[in-house]
């Protein structure tokens, strides 16, 4: 959650964990410009009526933060068309032809975007196909320069993008500002450099571009996922049709403006908005050579089936139910901070969220107590407030899903800890961070991806049991291990069936680091040299 060097606010009072390099370190090589964010320091309580939580008594009274809203104004058009062949289509109007994207923190409409039709998708795919020969004929060093330009403009417009991202998605500004947007710029920078070095990436083989890429991305990291998809494709000489998620299209559309600014040749990137029907049109279009999808495992399987009889290449980054293992010899305060980062980052709406906590029995009580205390100190509320830790849930639909699991968890016999008692705003979609104890591996909340700030706490006794339980899932995206013993770290990391294993840390991302899952969490990697593989033929 504080992946980019920002101290958790609780550190002011007592937090030995925050001094650890793992949590206090910076992953950000490129500072997003002009962000000397000053945390509000006034002593006036923010919510006079906020009820004190028992577990939070150490923090009650006197330690409240004043509101610290991000004040940058972002211009948003009333209506948006699609970005096809370097130009904008006329925005559609009407009930079925367009839809509203709202701010999940206040339910107000931000803009209306067009529902991409088969015709729109066809135009976008044709534009991408038409752009392909010239894009590929461009000397690789020149192609690289377009990516460098994009990266630079993203840095320069970082604050605007961060605010827009938080408004459209509900994520806290400190995450969009310190994690999402800097990583977006870094992703373009990293891949820009690959464009003229591809012959060194694949030993003994000559890579060639894959062609027209259809890319469908989710709503949890809207612009970052766009960067993960576009940057490697462009670096490898392909052209793209990208569909952002229907609840979070605005930053992708803003990226289209940046592509215009940097004079990216028309048709190299096309952005079509819409819901699942638009996504299906992309997947099924015969002019698409490769489909890249990030989203749920259910939809991923449907895409795999839909492309089965075709020549289309496929990479899938799907769901997870990642295990986070805490051994008794771990530095527990740091581990608790890692657990918080692992499950409450981005409201838990993270495919690799550490949603299954496995704690060694001897320290279960201690860890649970620390977790409860830390949970109580998280501030839930206005995503644009710089002190907010947990923002709004992305949509009414997602909130309903989370609430369904909260109900199910209690019905199946787990105990819900609601130590966090933040006062929630009157409108918008909110879920206070929480965790379940007394969870059995057979419980639904221990098996299914919730995609919300809900943690299932379980225990284990031996190393073998921890590994068995961690691997006992059809998913295999990520895992976390906390122990101070180096040889144990390496042994367990080797045995965990997960594409990313965070050891004594969690939820760290970097463009140079491959990301992607085992088993039903999908196939292919994104980021690093391994991420290029999905965008070339050898």
């Amino acid at each position, binding site marked *: 959650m504080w992946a980019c060097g920002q101290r958790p606010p609780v550190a002011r009072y007592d937090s030995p964990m925050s001094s*650890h*390099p*793992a949590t206090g*370190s*910076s*992953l*950000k*090589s*490129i500072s997003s410009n002009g962000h000397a964010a000053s945390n509000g320091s006034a002593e006036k309580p923010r919510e006079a009526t906020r009820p004190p939580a028992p577990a939070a008594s150490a923090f009650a009274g006197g330690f409240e933060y004043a509101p610290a809203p991000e004040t940058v104004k972002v211009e948003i058009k009333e209506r948006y068309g699609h970005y096809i062949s370097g130009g904008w289509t006329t925005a559609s109007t009407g009930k079925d032809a367009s839809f509203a994207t709202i701010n999940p923190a206040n339910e107000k409409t931000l803009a209306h975007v067009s529902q991409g039709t088969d015709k729109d998708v066809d135009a976008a795919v044709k534009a991408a196909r038409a752009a392909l020969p010239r894009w590929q004929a461009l000397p690789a060093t020149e192609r690289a320069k377009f990516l460098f330009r994009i990266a630079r403009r993203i840095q320069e417009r970082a604050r605007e993008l961060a605010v827009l991202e938080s408004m459209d998605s509900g994520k806290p500004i400190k995450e969009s500002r310190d994690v999402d947007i800097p990583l977006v710029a*870094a992703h373009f920078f990293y891949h820009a450099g690959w464009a003229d070095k591809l012959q060194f990436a*694949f*030993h*003994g*083989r000559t890579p060639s571009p894959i062609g027209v890429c259809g890319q469908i991305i989710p709503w949890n990291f809207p612009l970052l996922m766009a960067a993960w998809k576009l940057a490697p494709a462009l670096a490898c000489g392909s052209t793209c049709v990208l569909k952002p998620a229907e609840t979070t299209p605005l930053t992708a559309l803003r990226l289209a403006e940046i592509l215009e600014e940097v004079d990216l040749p028309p048709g190299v990137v096309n952005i079509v908005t819409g819901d699942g029907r638009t996504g299906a049109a992309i997947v099924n279009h015969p002019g698409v050579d490769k489909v890249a999808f990030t989203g749920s*495992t259910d939809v*991923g*399987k*449907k895409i*795999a*089936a839909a*492309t*089965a*009889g075709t020549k289309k290449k496929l990479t*899938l980054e*799907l769901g997870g139910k990642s295990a986070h293992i805490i051994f008794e010899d771990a530095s527990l305060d740091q581990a608790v901070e890692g657990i918080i980062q692992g499950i409450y980052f981005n409201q838990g709406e993270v495919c690799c969220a550490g949603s299954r906590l496995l704690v060694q029995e001897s320290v279960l009580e201690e860890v649970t107590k620390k977790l409860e205390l830390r949970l109580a100190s998280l501030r839930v509320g206005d995503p644009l407030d710089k002190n907010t830790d947990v923002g709004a849930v992305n949509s009414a639909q997602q909130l309903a899903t989370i609430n369904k699991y909260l109900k199910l968890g209690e019905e199946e016999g787990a105990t819900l800890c609601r130590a966090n008692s933040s006062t929630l705003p009157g409108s918008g979609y909110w879920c206070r961070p929480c965790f379940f104890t007394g969870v059995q591996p057979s419980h639904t909340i221990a098996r299914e991806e919730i995609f919300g700030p809900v943690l299932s706490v379980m225990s284990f006794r031996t190393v073998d049991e921890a590994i068995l339980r961690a691997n006992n899932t*059809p998913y*295999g995206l990520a895992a976390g291990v906390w122990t101070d013993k180096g040889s144990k*770290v390496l042994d367990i*990391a*080797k045995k965990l*069936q*997960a*594409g*990313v*294993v*965070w*050891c*004594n*840390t969690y939820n*760290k991302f*970097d463009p*140079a*680091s*491959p*990301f*992607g899952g*085992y*088993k*039903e969490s*999908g*196939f292919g*990697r994104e980021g*690093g*040299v*391994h991420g290029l*593989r999905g965008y070339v033929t*050898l």
Partner: protein
Amino acid sequence: MTRIPVLKTYKLLINGAFPRSESGRSLPVLDKKDNVLAHVAHASRKDLRDAVEAARAAQPKWAGATAYNRGQVLYRLAEMMEGKREELAEAIASVPFEARAQARARTGAASKRARSSTPSLEVSTAIDRVVHYAGWADKYGQVLGCNNPVAGPFYNFTSPEPTGVVVCLPPDGAPLLGLLSLIVPVLCAGNAVVTLASEANPIPSMILAEAAATSDMPGGILNILTGPRAELIPHITPHRDVDAVHAANLSAEQNAALRAGAAENLKRVTVREGVVFADNDACNSPWWIEPFVEFKTMWHPVSA
């Protein structure tokens, strides 16, 4: 008086043992003059399930063996095959010309170089391919994995791990070389294999099975089934305990059916099309191993 030859029935290779098909079925293999050359087992769906179960059970130990050891075991397989050169070549040559021609027709345009391959040359290339991949066992990790320079105080590296249980569907043509080319890169990476034999000529595969059983290869790592491919393919992809498929020269229908079934639990499917198996440049490469590994990336903080 002419000696009556002892007519052999080849059995299946499952879990290091040679059972007959649980179905009790067998098929004749005919020589050039339509005489029965031998019988092979006609594997059933249950045999396939048994083979997958054996592969699953044996895989962790094979994956856990040192890379050096896996390389040694594969080299031992080459040694055992070397002693069966003549038997293998004779088995390749003994299949009716029509059947071989049909098999060639299925491999399409790419069969031009395969046609120039004699049975003896096929055996040599096959053995040399095993030697080639024996050498990869302790090297592909260095070529396919790497350290990642992340922008923060973390040690971050990516290494290939075996995918698990892989089913191989070799082509009919090049009955020894086709099969070996599919299975050896997969085995090399620490996976366990269940493979069908060439349908047109299954005998070389079963001689290979006998070589494997007398090499140091642990039981269950390599399982070989004979019988009609069409009967078994529909049961392969829905099997939840199969992690990946490595196939060659499938028909468009087989390809589509395989991939549609694989979508059920997101199996990794690699289908080789138009590959000339005699071509070392094309077939000897870590990029033949890469589809059968999962890349694991590990992060650890760097601090005093």
